[in-house]
Every structure is written in structure tokens, then in C-alpha cells.
């Protein structure tokens, strides 16, 4: 039994520490300033710097781990509570970057700027802390704690937004359903813990295959945990909260949920599913169930998005559909062990998905003048002539989400479908394709109104330079990484190799 932790453990979790400390800056300065909102130096610049520092520290940690010849396998920190493998560090890097962008967007969005911005930043940054914990955790109970940190912050953040009606509804829906699912998740952890005697994933891996075939309580526990994750990543039939919450929340928060929460939840899901629980006797049924969930998620997400008018809601349903695609990769990874191309496909897709979704929501954000009028698809009308660059960027995001080459989204799908075909899940790939075809319809609608309609829609809010900057950067990334996906994918693959 270890009695203490090493200093190196503190280095590993330094991104969290930095973020937590940074999160205190605005709120402290507010307190010290006599309850007046601090300047944006404290509330925006320092947190963004903190986010960048966290990103740098993540990269630093991974460089350290790669550079140290003594480290043979992925190091564990805090007696096994956290694991510092490639995916974990990738994800924390990604989350840091997402956080920076979200902070920038938040300062310029009517839902979030204004009153209580320092509290907002505090909660937002700590939500990112929770995300990192989820991404790093090697212990199911730590995963649970991470999810709760992340989620509780978000519940409060959503309720905090400057709009009252929908945000409260969104908050309470998210809260009740989230806690409900958490309880099921936790019950699953309890059943697993009781039967295998541990909640450490690296220990579960060793016994899972054996115990899952003899102990049905363990199996039901794994099922419940999987369903808990399914809720977090909004898979059918647990996706219903997603559109409502995404629509009702302030756009920066929606963005954060659609990118950060989804990324880390999927990473944790992937970790969980690659613990060899799909290798046992009952794996057939388990895999079949997951496959049906994937297919139905793809179909339901896409068909529901077709009939929407609210842009955020469209993106929410599209996010559901993308969860379906990702689940294909997770199934493949689960069926084939963590080192398969399924896992790297998932990670790459998450990366791609985060970038393009971030961009798409940022476009929604610049359109928002106040908190009363939701952004409809028709509000994009005439954007091509008034804001050609933003329209082009939106066009890139939509095409990428639809998976048209040579954008990033195409390569994401390519790797995922490759994984499915390689492991013989051919029909999953076919359903993925069918879903993509349906999705084209609603992804093209923004293009239609932007370029093919002469009427004028809602104007862009002025003085949103940071958001616009972020949009352009994201669009460039979508194209450039799309064209040069190789090095990134190789990184993902390398990072996946350390996943057990």
C-alpha cells in the first residue's frame, strides 16, 4: 500500500492545478474589488493564459513521459486514481484549447457576458477541471466524481445565464436527468465493485473477461455503467435531454457541452469499453445491444434534425448523430481491445468533431444579438454577401460535419468506417453511410440560406472580434488538418497504443 504520492504526480496533474488556481483569479479580484466585476484582463486574459498553460503542461507531460526511458507503460498517478496515457494527455490538451475558445466566446455572447461573469469563469474553468479528471481517471469512482464536478458546474452555469426561462428549464432538465443517470451509473459501479473487488480500470482489465462469464451481477453492473456513459454521450434512447438542453443553454455553454463534455465522456466510455468486458461469453448480446444503439442513434439523430428550424437544435441533433458514429468506433475498439484502429478512430473523430462543432456553434454565437431571439436557420440569410468570410467558414464546418472530403470530418468518418470494416462490422458502416446521406440534407440548409437566398437575415453582432477570430482559425484547422490528417492520426494511434 502506498502511503503517499510523489512530486511527479503533482506535475502530471499540473494542468488541473493551474486551471483551478487561475479560476480563482477573477472571483478573488471581484471579492477584493468590492464586488465589482473585474476588468477583462482578470476575467478573460488570465483564464485564457491559464488554459494555454494547461495545454502546454499537457504537452509537456506527454513529452516527459515519452522522453523518459524508464517509463515503460503509461504512468499511474495518485495510487492509480489517474492514468497519464496518450489519450488522457491529448484530451486534456484538447479540453484546454476548447476552454480558451469558450472563454473568448463567452465574453462576447449576450447569454454569458455581463453580470456575474467572474463567477461564470470560475465555474467554467472548474468544469474543465472536472473534464480533465474524467479524461484521466483510472478509477471508476474518480470518473464519477469528475463527471459530477463537470456536470454540477454546468448545471449552475446554465441556470446562471442572463436569460431566464429556457435556461432554467434546460438547467433543471439537465440536472434531474443527469442525476438520475448518475445514480444508475453509480449503482453499476457498486455492483461491479462488489463482484470484482475493485474500481480501478487496470485491475478490472485483468479479471473482467473471466468474471463476466461467471458472474451475472458483474455483467449487469457493466451494463448499467455503460448506460450511464450512454446518457452522458447522448446515445439512443438516452439522448432526449440533449436537444432541449443544448437549445436552452447559452450558446457558449452549449458549445462547451457539445465539445468538451462529449469528448471526455467518450474518452471515459472508450476506456471503460476497452476493459475487455466485451471479450466474455456474454459479449455477443452486449455488442449487439450496443450496435442497435449506434444504428438507432444515427438514424434518430439525423432524421430529427431534418425538421428543425432552430440552428442550435439542429446542431444538437447532429451532435446526437455524431455520437452514433463514434459509438461505432467504441464498439469496434471494445470488441477488438484497446489498441485497435477503432480506438484511434474514435479519438481522431472526437478531435475532428470538437473542432468543427466549436466552429459551427461559434458562428451561432456571433449571430446572437440578445437572449430573446433564438437563431433560426433563416437568420443566416444573405450572410454570404455581408460576411463572406464567416459564411465560408460556416460552409466549411457544415461540409465537414457532413463528411465531404477533403475536410477534417471526412477523414474522421473515413477512419471510423475503416475501423468498422476492418473488424467486420460492415453493416454498421452501411448504416453510418445512410445516416450521412440523411444528414447532408440539414447540413446543406445553412448553405442554402447563406448563399442561395437574396433576402437579408439577422445581422452579425459587431464587436465580436475574438469569436470571429476563433471561427476563422477553426475553419482553417478543418481544412488544413483535413488535408494533412496523417501526422495527427499517427499521434492518435500512438496514444491509443498505450491504452492497456
Amino acid at each position, binding site marked *: 500500500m502506498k502511503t503517499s504520492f510523489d512530486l511527479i504526480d503533482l506535475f502530471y496533474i499540473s494542468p488541473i492545478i493551474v486551471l483551478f488556481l487561475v479560476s480563482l483569479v477573477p472571483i478573488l479580484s471581484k471579492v477584493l474589488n468590492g464586488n465589482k466585476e473585474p476588468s477583462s484582463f482578470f476575467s478573460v486574459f488570465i483564464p485564457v493564459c491559464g488554459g494555454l498553460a494547461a495545454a502546454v503542461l499537457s504537452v509537456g507531460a506527454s513529452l516527459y513521459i515519452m522522453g523518459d526511458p524508464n517509463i515503460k507503460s503509461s504512468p499511474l498517478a495518485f495510487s492509480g486514481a489517474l492514468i497519464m496515457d496518450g489519450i488522457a494527455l491529448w484530451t486534456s490538451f484538447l479540453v484546454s484549447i476548447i476552454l480558451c475558445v469558450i472563454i473568448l466566446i463567452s465574453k462576447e455572447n449576450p447569454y454569458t457576458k455581463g453580470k456575474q461573469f467572474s463567477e461564470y469563469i470560475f465555474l467554467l474553468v472548474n468544469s474543465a477541471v472536472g473534464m480533465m479528471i474524467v479524461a484521466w481517471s483510472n478509477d471508476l469512482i474518480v470518473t464519477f466524481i469528475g463527471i459530477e464536478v463537470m456536470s454540477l458546474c454546468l448545471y449552475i452555469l446554465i441556470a446562471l445565464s442572463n436569460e431566464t426561462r429556457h435556461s432554467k428549464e434546460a438547467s433543471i*432538465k439537465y440536472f434531474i436527468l443527469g442525476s438520475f443517470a448518475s445514480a444508475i451509473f453509480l449503482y453499476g459501479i457498486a455492483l461491479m465493485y462488489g463482484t470484482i473487488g475493485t474500481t480501478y480500470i487496470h485491475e478490472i482489465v485483468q479479471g473482467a473477461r473471466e468474471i463476466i462469464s461467471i458472474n451475472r451481477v458483474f455483467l449487469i453492473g457493466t*451494463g448499467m455503467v455503460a448506460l450511464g456513459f450512454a446518457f452522458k454521450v447522448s446515445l439512443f*434512447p438516452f439522448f432526449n*435531454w440533449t436537444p432541449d438542453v443544448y437549445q436552452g443553454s447559452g450558446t457558449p455553454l452549449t458549445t462547451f457541452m457539445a465539445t468538451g463534455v462529449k469528448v471526455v465522456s467518450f474518452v471515459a466510455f472508450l476506456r471503460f469499453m476497452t476493459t475487455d468486458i466485451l471479450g466474455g461469453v456474454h459479449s455477443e*448480446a452486449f455488442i449487439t445491444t450496443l450496435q442497435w444503439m449506434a444504428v438507432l442513434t444515427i*438514424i434518430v439523430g439525423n432524421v430529427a434534425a431534418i*425538421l428543425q428550424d432552430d440552428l442550435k437544435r439542429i446542431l444538437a441533433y447532429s451532435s446526437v448523430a455524431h455520437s452514433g458514429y463514434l459509438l461505432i468506433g467504441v464498439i469496434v475498439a471494445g470488441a477488438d481491445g484497446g489498441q485497435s484502429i477503432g480506438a484511434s478512430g474514435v479519438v481522431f473523430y472526437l478531435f475532428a468533431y470538437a473542432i468543427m462543432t466549436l466552429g459551427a456553434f461559434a458562428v451561432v454565437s456571433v449571430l446572437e444579438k440578445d437572449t430573446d431571439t433564438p437563431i433560426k436557420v433563416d437568420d443566416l440569410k444573405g450572410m454570404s454577401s455581408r460576411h463572406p468570410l464567416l459564411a465560408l467558414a460556416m460552409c466549411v464546418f457544415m461540409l465537414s460535419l457532413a463528411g465531404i472530403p477533403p475536410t477534417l470530418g471526412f477523414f474522421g468518418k473515413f477512419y471510423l468506417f475503416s475501423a468498422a470494416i476492418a473488424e467486420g462490422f460492415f453493416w454498421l458502416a452501411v448504416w453510418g453511410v445512410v445516416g450521412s446521406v440523411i444528414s447532408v440534407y440539414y447540413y446543406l440548409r445553412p448553405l442554402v440560406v447563406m448563399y442561395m437566398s437574396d433576402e437579408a437575415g439577422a445581422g452579425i453582432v459587431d464587436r465580436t472580434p475574438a469569436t470571429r477570430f476563433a471561427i476563422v482559425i477553426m475553419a482553417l484547422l478543418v481544412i488544413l488538418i483535413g488535408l494533412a490528417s496523417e501526422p495527427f492520426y499517427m499521434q492518435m494511434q500512438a496514444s491509443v497504443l498505450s491504452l492497456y
Partner: protein
Amino acid sequence: MSNELLFAILLQAPLVGFVINGVRFQSKDYKFAGILACSAMAISFACSVILSSRLLSMDPANRHITSTLFDWISAGSFNAEVGFTVDAISAIMILVITGVGFLIHLFSVGYISHDERPSKYFAYLNFFVFNMLLLVLGDNLLVMFVGWEGVGLCSYLLIGFWFTDREKAAAGMKAFITNRIGDAGFLLGIFFLFMEFGTVNFQDLNALAPAASLLSWGEPLVLACLFLFIGACGKSAQIPLYVWLPDAMAGPTPVSALIHAATMVTAGVYMIVRLNSVFMAAPDVMMIIACVGAATALIAASIGVCQNDIKKVLAYSTVSQLGYMFLGVGVGAFMPAMFHLMTHAFFKALMFLGSGSVIHAMHEEQDIRKMGGLKKALPITSFTFTLGWLAIIGIPPFAGFFSKDEILWYSFASDRGAPFLWVIGVIAAGLTAFYMTRLMALTFWGKSRVPADVHPHESPATMTIPLIVLGVLSVVGGWIGIPHVIGAVLPGHPPNLLEGWLHYSVAKITLPQDAHVMEWILMGVSLSVAGLSAIFAYDSYVRNPDRPERLAKRYSRLHNLVYNKYFVDEIYFGRIINPLIEASKGLWVYIDVNFIDKATYQASGFVKSLGSSVRTLQNGNLQTYALYIALGAAIALSFIMG
């Protein structure tokens, strides 16, 4: 001059004429256009004469001049060159085309002088001659096909020359499409021949054709001949594809003379003669050709009896005469068929031009019931027309007598022939004599029925000179092919020059030797049938002008049937074309719009309805969502637990 250069000039003279006139198509300067076109034709004619005379000086067994320009299409094993050959058969053709063509061009200068677009007219005419020359000179099937379709195109353009008239434009379209049906058959014929012999060159094909007769219908060669004959049917207006030719009379009359009497329509006969060795190997197909030819001759002649439009009468006469030619090639009478082709070109061109002269004089009136007694007003036209009349009804020694009689003799006596073919031929000859006499009687003889405001006058010299020349040819044209049996009793024993000329070019056919008596008897019978028929017609239309009406009344049903051309057009339109259009509309509306397109709609409609049902489930109620979670968990866990 080298042969290549001669070929080049021969072909390019009309082409140059076409291009120059085509570029100045909006010009109204008919003199320039006419002189250009005529001189192009004159040059071509000169070249043809030179080429033919060179042929004449060559060894009769190997009498051909070939010139290859370049490889046209080569793909895989297929190779077609743009190559030209003039030999005994094509020499006749080019002489007729350029010679008669020149005369018709000359005639046109006067005829078209009042038109809006003389340049365009001459351009088309020259282009037609160019294509016709390609057709006859091409040394392989593909080059022939180029000309084959090219003349069809020109025919289309010229029939529809006055295209502002909807009927005339429709006639052009009808001609082209009917020809296309034949062309499709022609193409299939080419494919079969290529598949069988691996070449499309005429000399190779004739050399490779088997000497023995092939009787099986599965033989590619037999099918090839059948499909080629369908092609010939289209171009040469044989049953069942003859319907376009009467309508083609919508074009200017010289065009009818050139294209629809003298040259283009005989292309089918020419093609079969060209491939005579191949066709000889398929006796069954030849029998079909003979029967179709005979039937066409008879039916077209019978329709001609009741027509009142001067050009329609001539058109049906043309169809009928083409039937004779097919009867000829069908029974193996290749030489007589070519002979008749040539003489027919002379007298039918003459008659068409004559009718043109009449129509010109009558101010575009074509109904023979409104003519009569024009002999006095149009002396030259009338006289030359009479020569043509004598030629076509086969009165010796006019041209038509020799050629027609030769065909009839072959159809009776050849080993490919049969007596019934001869009987049909003779009946057709009788009908021909009748309707041609009727035409003469109603147009030139008897009392004038010309409306008072029309003052017919003789045409200018550019129009009458061609008439005179063709009139002479209609008389003497037959003398180059005097049959042996007649030649033997004539002073000086004139030889059958044409037979000598074509001796090595066409396949031999077995004829009974020493059957002179029979030949004389048959000749007498056919001659007397024609003569009696002509006299009866003269009697009916000049002496007793009310008799035809009485007869028509007595046999009203028959008259009605014949008068309406056996309702063939009506059947084609009512039973084939209109149903096809209706069916196409049905395809469009029911299959394309309401089935294929609708399937797409319904697929997207299905997706949308799926979407709306998902939206219904998404009812906004927190507890419903919780229910979905619980229910989903229950079902998923049940599945997982098996």
C-alpha cells in the same frame, strides 16, 4: 492528271460549291449561286467522264481505280479507311449523278430565281451531290454509310426547304426518320458483315463471300443481307418504308427530280448491286427482295392511278419503278437493274423537270384536274414530257422499254425468278401505262381546265435545255443495253454494251439458253398489255372524260381504298406513331414522374415522417425523458443479460 487528283476534284468541286454558297446563304443573288453550283457540277461531270474513259481503257477483268485518303476509324480490330473506288458499277452512277445532276442544277437556276434563298438552295444541292458521290465512290461500307446518311440529311433539308410551311417541315422530318429506320438496319448489316468477314471493304467482301448458297436463317451473312435490305428499303422507298417519298414532293421540284427520282432513291439498288456476290449467297433474302420489289411496283402503281397531284403521280411512279429495280436485283438481274436505274434516271428526271416546268408555268398549281390542254402553251415541255411518257410505259425503242423488259425477262427466266413475279411485273407495267397516259391526258391533252387568271407560258431556256437533253437521253439511253435477242434482228447487230461493261462486276446468273421464242412472246405480252392500257387511258380521259367518274362510282369502295393510298399513312400514324407518343407520355408521367421520382420523394417523405415521429416523442416533459431512460435501460439490460 493523276487519279487521286481527279477523285479530289470530283468530290471537292461540289463541296467547295456548298461551302461558298453556304457561307453566303442569305444572299439573294441567284445568278452567282447558280453559276457557281452549275460549274461545280460541270467540273465534277468532266472528272467523271475522264475517270470513266480511263476505266474504259483498262483491262475489263480488273477495271477499277482506287484512291485511299486516310484511315478514318480504327479501334481494336476494326479499321475503316476513307477510300474511293470507281469501277464499272460506280462509273455508271457517277456519270448519272453528275450528268443528270448538272442538268438539274441548270434547270434550277431558272426555277429558283424568284425564291428568297437561292444560295442556300444551291448549297444544299451541291452538298447533296457531294454526299451522293461519297455514297457511290466509297470503297467500304462505312464511307458508303456516310454518304447514305448524308444524302438523307440533304434530302431532309431540301424537302423542308420551305420550312415555314408546317406540312413541308413535317415531310422532311418524316423522310429523315423513315430513312433512319432503314439506316439502323443498314448499321446492323454492317455489324453482321464485319463479324463474319472482319472487314467492311467492298472488294474484300465480294471476294470473301461464299460461292455456295446459304440457306439457314441463322447465318450472319443471311441476316446481314436482310438488314442491309431493310436499309435499302428505307432509302429506296420500298414497302413498308415507302411512305416518305410521296410526302417528299413537298420539296422544290428539281430536288424531287434529282434526289427523289434520279439518284438518292436508287442508292438501295446500287448498294445491293455493289454487294452482289454477298447477296447471291443468300437466295432466300433475294427472294424476299424480289417479292418486296414486285409488291411495291404493283401497289405504288395502283396508287398512282388515282392521284391528282402531278408530283404525287410521279412520286408513286418512282416508287413503282424502284420496285422494278428491286425485283430485278432480287432475281439476280443486276445488270438490268443498273440499266433500269440509269434509264429511269433519265426519263424520270425529265418528267419531274417537266412537271416543274408545268408547275412553274401554272404558278405553283400542282393539281392535274386544273390543267389540261397545256400542249399548246408549253410546246417544248409537252414534247419532252411525251418522250418520257413513251419511255416509261416501255414503248420501243425508247429507253424504258429495253431496261424494263430485261428485268421482266429475268424475273421470268432466271433461276432466282418465278413466273408469278413476271405476272405482277406485267400488271404493274399495265397500270404504269394507264396512269402515265392519264397524266399526259389530263395535263397536256384534251380541253383546258386552267383557271382564267393563270396564263401558262413556256419556261426560259435554262429550264428547257435540260428538258431537251434529257428527252434525247430518254430516247437513246436505252440503246446501250439492247438485249441480244433484239439486237440479233436489228440491222448492224448492236451489241449489249452495258452487259459488256458490267460483265466482270456482277455475279453471273443462270438464264435459259435458246429461249428466244419465249422471250419474244413475253415481250409481246407485256408490250401489248402496256399498249392496251395506254389506249384505254387515252380513251377514258380524252375521248370519254366522264367514264372515270362512272367507274369510280361503280367501284366506289375500291376507288376509295386506292384513292386514300390504302390508308397506309393513317395506319402508321394511328397504330404505331401516335400510340408510341402516348406510351412515351405514359412513361414520362407514370414511370418517371410518378414512380422513379416519386420513390425519391417517398424516401425523403419517409425520413421526414420518421423525423416528425421522433419530434413527437420529444415532448418536452422531463418525466417522459426519464421514462425513456428507464425503459431504455430496462430493455438494454434485458438484452445484455440475454
